[in-house]
């Protein structure tokens, strides 16, 4: 009857485990799969990522680059599952998932659709 009480009081004096998120940052491993980073220069607009994506979240849109209009992937983060299949399929691996979480937290759903320029 008394043993559970002892266990609880022992737990009271242990240190806290939760992290107060906005103030303290949580340590993420380096291979964490967060927001996609696109290297516009090396992208050969082959569309492999658009075809491999299970949720069809990547769409090839024509963007203005210094070498004229090229088709670049536009990512709709509303439907993205962060499975990093596009990173694996990309022949010139110009598309990498980074540890950056802040850009993917938005207040307006339309901001989740990121054009290639915003994926820098």
């Amino acid at each position, binding site marked *: 009857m008394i043993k559970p009480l002892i266990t609880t009081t022992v737990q009271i004096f242990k240190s806290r485990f939760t992290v107060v998120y906005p103030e303290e940052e949580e340590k993420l491993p380096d291979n964490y799969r967060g927001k996609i980073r696109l290297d516009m220069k090396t992208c050969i607009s082959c569309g492999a990522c658009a075809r491999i994506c299970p949720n*069809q*979240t990547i*769409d090839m849109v024509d963007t203005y680059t210094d070498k004229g209009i090229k088709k670049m992937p*536009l990512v*709709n983060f509303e439907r993205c599952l962060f499975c990093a299949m596009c990173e694996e399929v990309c022949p010139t691996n110009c598309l990498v998932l980074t540890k950056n979480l802040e850009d993917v937290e938005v207040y307006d759903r339309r901001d989740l*659709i990121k054009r290639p320029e915003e994926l820098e």
Partner: protein
Amino acid sequence: MPKIEYANLDAEIEKLHSEGFTYLTKITAVDYVDHVEVLYFLRDIEKNKEIVVRSDLAPNYLRLKSIMHLYPAADWYERELSEMFGIDFIGRKTKRLLLEKWDGKGNPLRKSFTWGSKYEVQE
């Protein structure tokens, strides 16, 4: 396990049940457009033996005898199959749809059931 004729499917299942295959793992069906194949996965728990009983059904005559009296586990599997494939099971009490949030028209897992238009990405 060779295919069983549609006629003596029930006799085969009863024979296996008496032989000791008392555990029903799953009932599934596959729609091969010209015929629908039904599979019963039976198992004998003590002697750890497995058997798959298969048989073909003509696409227009999708009717099977219910095996709920032998395997109570079959209740939910049969209801799921009747919704997904349109196979109706004879000798069943509850007729209520298993999947609540669905109006029940059409059988999704048949090849004839197609999706709406491809889901476009909003610009």
